[in-house]
């Protein structure tokens, strides 16, 4: 990498980076500090680099223990739904899965996370082509685990499924969501990015975009996240309202 080659009495960008990163031996560090004492432009460069380094420490990606960036209103938001009545059809050519939403407030897992659990369908979700005991069972079990808040188990089951092409978008969406709840944000984002958004019906499509926004933020892609937030803020409906509240939060 070519460095900015100022006149030879001034440190290069590489030297300043070495100093900021703590890679210099004591004598070399002392030489640089002595120079900064009498050279305001070089000291300003050092100050900018050191500031950028400390900013990086404040913005360590969440998957390595960095602070998730949440306004208070998002942190207090919880999820209220309940799984009841899973129904499986015995038909050879089709498998019917139904998850019925209820008003009961979810347990601690959702309340502690910024992510919003995916909505439960109020209509039947029909998958085809899986016989009982086949991949359709893992799809149903994965959804049941998700609904019960067992996100690690849900992600394992949903990642195993090799079901029909018809099911794939939804399966990947729920897989991404379970990974997000499990703290595996980078994986969740990659999974989500493999979902063809246009194939998702509402309200899942909107929720997938909200999840993408949160994952972009938590993986350090703040500029992309802010751009998506601006788009979501112009939309109608629950996700649009959520985006506008987020933008308005201090």
């Amino acid at each position: 990498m070519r460095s900015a080659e100022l006149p030879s009495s001034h440190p290069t960008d590489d030297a300043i980076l070495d100093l900021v990163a703590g890679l210099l031996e004591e004598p070399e560090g002392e030489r640089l500090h002595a120079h900064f004492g009498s050279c305001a432009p070089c000291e300003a460069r050092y100050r900018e680099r050191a500031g950028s380094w400390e900013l990086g420490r404040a913005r360590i990606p969440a998957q390595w223990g960095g602070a998730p960036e949440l306004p208070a209103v998002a942190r207090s938001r919880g999820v209220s739904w309940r799984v009841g009545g899973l129904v499986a059809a015995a038909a050879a050519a089709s498998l019917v899965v139904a998850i019925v939403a209820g008003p009961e407030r979810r347990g601690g897992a959702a309340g502690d996370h910024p992510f919003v659990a995916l909505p439960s369908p109020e209509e039947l979700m029909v998958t085809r082509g899986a016989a009982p005991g086949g991949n359709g069972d893992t799809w149903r079990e994965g959804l049941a685990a998700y609904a019960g808040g067992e996100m690690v188990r849900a992600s394992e089951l949903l990642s195993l499924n090799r079901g029909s092409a018809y099911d794939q978008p939804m399966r990947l969406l729920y897989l991404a969501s379970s990974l997000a709840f499990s703290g595996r944000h980078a994986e969740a984002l990659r999974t989500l990015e493999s979902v063809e958004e246009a194939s998702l019906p509402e309200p899942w499509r909107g929720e997938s975009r909200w999840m993408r926004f949160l994952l972009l933020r938590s993986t350090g892609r703040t500029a992309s996240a802010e751009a998506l937030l601006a788009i979501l803020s112009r939309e109608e409906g629950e996700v649009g309202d959520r985006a506008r509240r987020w933008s308005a939060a201090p």
Partner: protein
Amino acid sequence: MSGHPGPQWPSRLCALLQAAASPAEPGPCRRALCEETWLLLRAALVSGLERQARRCGPLDREDLEDLASEKSLELVLAAEEGKWRVEDRSPGEIAGYLASVARNAVVDHLRRCGRMIRDPGLDWAESGDGRVAVHGGAGPPAREVRRADLLPAAESPDAAPERREFTAALAQCLASLPSRSQRVWLLRVLFDMSARDIAAHPDVEVRQDQVDVVVHRARHLMGRCMRKKGFDAEALPPGTFAELWRRFRIRSPAPSGGAGEEHEIRRIAVQPSD
């Protein structure tokens, strides 16, 4: 600078990336390894992005920092997953690769924003005629500075002793603050960090809504202390930052979490490549 042995960061980065690519159990050491790798990658990319921005077009400071964060995370994850293999790469090759990553990132970003400017003459390292392009934080048009302006002006005979006295007084006043207030004051006054970033800093245990209160109180105490010593704390003369940062550089607490103990950020022991 004469006597500088050559950049150290590419070798360190090479060793870290190779360690990140090796299979290991998740845990505090793994997390610390990934953090250090990410920080060093990010710092190198910030430097590269600035150089490319001088060539291609103005880049807001915040966008530059975000791009560096985003690209460095992609690279760390790629190294972990074995998609970016560095064991056959020299430190110089890695540095060169990062330069190309920085260039592509700036070009893509500026094209998206419609702010692409192509003017190789603005890169003084290429023009060789002593012109330097400088961009402000909010992306104003580039201004040219003659290389001669970058040379240090001759100091008056009184300047060095005055600076030393000022720095010593500032350090004494700062040392009289509680450690929590010291850190918040340093991050705000030296780097103008936002309350959100200060609260998120790993060495600061202050809630975001408390940061400005702590800053205000610390500024008040520092101002009063410095005025008693006959100085104005708000105007930092040249040379003050470097000395202050050397004395008070925020260091990570010990891994055992001993309250009040501060140690160097623990270096992850890696074997450097030959």
